[in-house]
């Protein structure tokens, strides 16, 4: 059973046990426009919550992706090196970015659930 959390920076976090899979939301991909390059972290890299973890380059600009929770990078979605536009096509599925092994589950309480994120986006 997985559950989804969201950040105010428009990242989604899917939590399965102590593993968090991270991506950007449909809203974020729409705002960024056509994505042409993604600078993903190395497997094994350690981040504190809020650290710069990745960079998404669209035709318009470079956007930082922050670690939504603290942890160590597990898998990275290497398919995005070849097809970064997958994030535009399926931001909340095949366009996942990387996984983190969560080091402080308490940080998840700072994130929004789906309803709260929907309300957050509606106000933008």
């Amino acid at each position: 059973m997985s559950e989804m959390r969201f950040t105010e920076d428009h990242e989604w976090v899917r939590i399965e046990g102590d593993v968090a899979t991270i991506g950007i939301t449909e809203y974020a991909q729409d705002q960024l426009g056509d994505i042409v390059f993604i600078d993903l972290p190395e497997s094994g890299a350690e981040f504190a919550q809020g650290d710069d973890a990745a960079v998404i380059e669209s035709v318009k600009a470079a956007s930082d992706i922050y670690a939504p929770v603290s942890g160590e990078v597990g898998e990275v979605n290497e398919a995005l090196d070849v097809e970064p536009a997958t994030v535009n096509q399926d931001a909340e599925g095949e366009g996942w970015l990387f996984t983190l092994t969560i080091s402080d589950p308490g940080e998840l309480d700072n994130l929004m659930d789906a309803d709260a994120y929907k309300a957050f986006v509606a106000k933008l």
Partner: protein
Amino acid sequence: MSDPNGAPLKRTSLYDLHVRSEGKMVPFAGYEMPVQFPAGVLKEHLHTRAAAGLFDVSHMGQLYLHGDGAAAALETLVPGDIQALAPGCTRYTQFTTEAGGILDDLMVTQAGDRLYLVVNAACKEADIALLRDGLPKDIAIELLDDRALIALQGPMAAAVLARLAPQVAEMPFMSSASVMILGTSCTVGRGGYTGEDGFEISVPASAAEDLAAALLNEAEVVPIGLGARDSLRLESGLCLYGHDIDTTTTPIEAGLLWSISKRRRAEGGFPGDAVIQRQIKDGVARKRVGLRPEGRAPAREGTRVTDEAGAEIGTVTSGGFGPSVGGPVSMAYVSSDFASIGTSVLLEVRNKAMAASVVAMPFVPQRYYRG
């Protein structure tokens, strides 16, 4: 909407049309302008290269200079050969500083009894002040604030516009003519800012929306925002004022020597002539070049350029992803020792050194109409 300084933004006469076309409106040079339409920058860019795109460039400054000797008078402010312009012909030039820097770049058309100038939106107030101060009192400056400017660009632009005005089909590149379109007298120039064949149509503001709507009604034409305008001009190796050229760069460093005729090189008589003549004779310490980064990461404006040992040799002034190139492209100023085609350099992107090569510009072939 207001600009970053809180001043209210102006709107062009195509504002309502942009909103109806679902343009994403952003502040730009004091105007609310569409940065993109629902298709997005990538598709808009590729569509322009494949068919035709319509651009609202009404934010740019349009003006006439009237009076005998206007061409000679304007030459005291620009290095371009304005006196050699034949009627109906257009030339690219720059307003220069006493140090040889560039205050703005502009198009000048010899329109018979007057000169027609198109200047950058962000510079137009300063340009007008410069003209008022710099030209003799018998040269009258007429601001064309009541005119819109619509660019139609792409390989199908000529076929589309010729349906409304057949005579544009054979217009030479960099020529200008008075043309009736949909019952309105317009000034049509052949050229643009994309590297493609195309036209810029100066039209009374009151008729602009009908003209733009009629062009957009043609199957080949889609609206294009500022995002794709920038990627198109970058791939075509064209300078963007305030980025690739400014008061700290000279026309020679910028690779714009072609825009200064032999007579003007020899005679001078424009601001910064001594500096520019010396640079033509002795060379320059740095040059604007094209860079192709290896890999896919774009190297954007401000990226440091280093030699292979890591010593700084220059800075990127424009950079991004080139949709038609299918990869990243940048323009940079580099030390002249590193400006030869094929030189290997490094780009510092997010603290990582990324390999790149100096390449010839444009990054994609220009496809101007040559008759």
